[in-house]
């Protein structure tokens, strides 16, 4: 069977490390890769009237920017790898949405990078890695 790996990618160094790790894994197992970027978003946040009015337009701009600045370079860097590369770009809670992308694409694992030191904010609010480890529908690999 062919293996499909979802890589949570935001263009950071640790995300690149995760992408490199996943690429090696996919080559060794003969699998494919889904480069996934999630724009943090809560439908329960508060916006001003002007922000409401412009939301649809801003959303389009944000998607274009993420596509061009984050996903396109990642796909470009993998074009010589010979692997089958897909992308996913969504809004939502990062951990939950990565899990959803894995389920929808039929992936059998998720690879993410670890972001920096375990600081106060990640202790209070939890980190993407911890939330994903607790809630992901498939095995998760966290690359340091």
């Amino acid at each position, binding site marked *: 069977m062919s293996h499909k790996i979802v890589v949570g990618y935001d263009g950071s160094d640790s995300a690149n490390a995760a992408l490199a790790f996943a690429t090696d894994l996919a080559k060794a197992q003969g699998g494919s890769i889904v480069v996934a970027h999630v*724009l943090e*978003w809560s*439908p*329960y*946040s*508060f*916006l*001003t*009237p*002007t922000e*409401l*009015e*412009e*939301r*649809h*337009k801003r*959303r*389009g701009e*944000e*998607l274009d920017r993420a596509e061009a600045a984050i996903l396109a370079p990642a796909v470009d860097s993998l074009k010589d790898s010979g692997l089958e590369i897909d992308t996913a770009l*969504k*809004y*939502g809670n990062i951990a939950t*949405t990565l899990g*959803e992308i894995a389920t929808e694409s039929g992936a059998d694992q998720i690879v993410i990078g670890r972001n920096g030191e375990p600081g106060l904010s990640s202790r209070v609010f939890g980190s993407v890695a911890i939330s994903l480890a607790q809630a992901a529908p498939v095995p998760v690999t966290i690359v340091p």
Partner: protein
Amino acid sequence: MTNQIKAAALAAPAVLAASAPAMAQSLDQTINEGFASATGWFVSFIFSPFPGTSFPWIVMWLVIAATVFTLYFGFIQFRAFPHSISLVKGDYSDPNDAGEVSHFQALATALSGTVGLGNIAGVAVAVGIGGPGATFWMILAGLMGMASKFTECTLGVKYRNEYEDGTVSGGPMYYMTKGFAERGLPAGGFMAVLFSVFCILGAFGGGNMFQANQAHAQIANVVGDYPGWITGLVFAAIVFAVIVGGLKSIAKVTEKVVPFMGVLYVLTALVILIMNANMIGWAFGQIFAGAFTGAGVAGGMVGALIQGFKRAAFSNEAGVGSAAIAHSAVRTKEPITEGFVSLLEPFIDTVVICTMTALVIIITGQLISDPNTGMYLLDEGASTIQTVDGNKGVALTSAAFSSAIPFFKYILAIAVILFAFSTMISWSYYGLKAWTFLFGEGQTKELVFKVIFCIFVVIGASANLGPVIDFSDAAIFAMAVVNIVALYFLMPVVKGELDSYLSRLKSGEIKKFH
């Protein structure tokens, strides 16, 4: 000679120091008198009574409208209530629309425009004039107003303009023009212009001057009396920085803190009610007795009813048309869903929050009654009920909360300032939409409106409560006059949307995503 100059030079600062407060007070006075004489005719027209009675026609207008919508849509506010909650929770939201404006966000933004001083100061005005009985009529007006809100917000989304760049503009101006044209009705354009004019006045009045006025009253209540134009200038500078300077940080902070303050306000009221749990029954007794007998208040039962309906309408803006502007940015394929969501607004605003304020004022014994007869005592002018310290408006609410929780007046002062500010930001937007509808879009035109808006902040903070509240009410109710006429003509459109949606919901064509 030199000595004389010296003496004069020494005396000058003293004279200046002495005359500064006098000048400041007289500036306030000048603004107040000028304002009262300029707006008096408009106020008298809107609040003129039916011939031979003391009942203002405008109150009857709102009551009849809310009743008509409630009956026409078969008590939609009760039937659709559970479905409204599901919609706000996002049960029916398509996950692929994540990142677009959700039902929750549209509701929250609309609420931060309506939850404000109407809930704190307006209720105190109602109870202070109409007695506890005004609360009953306020709650009833809130419940009925849910149907008006449902109607106008469905139309707001249905007939909004979606521009090529992805921005949207909606509101009564658009359903009056597009909706009337679609149904082959005349005068839609004329009504839209009339509504826009009143909407701009409402933005300057209830959405601005009343807010600045009561924010100043509350600050003065905490730190001691000082001239209102000072508060006005500070507020105007901040509003200017946000709406002209595009200073998003202040608006963002406000949008986050306001819901928190709203919850804190309701929780504090609940704590006070629990502390006085044994009096809640008595308080409701007072509310019911006052509603039907008048219990000696100014104007008797009719006075209580007028006050209750007036303040409820002013607080939740049902039928006024402002909410239709706020709600129209939501992302939905079904305009009716935003109608369902919007009907929660008068419920939260009036039935929950206003009732809390009224109960706290009644239970903490702010209104003075005759121990022998149980009748409320009126002050000298026989227009308002005597209160413990002679407080009116926001000061009365503040005194009521502080009598149970002494430091609460400081928290309330912050809440009042933030509520006032968020309401001003919302109304500056409503006013701007009406302004650009009339004069077209363009940076200079928009700047002119925004600068005038800031000037009215200063006027509002300087003037007395009486003329300001009269003008604010008059402008907001004038919007309702035009808007409700349009709603009568367009309500069959809403009915069609409603029937189609409900049948598809029943057949399972409209499904939950979560």
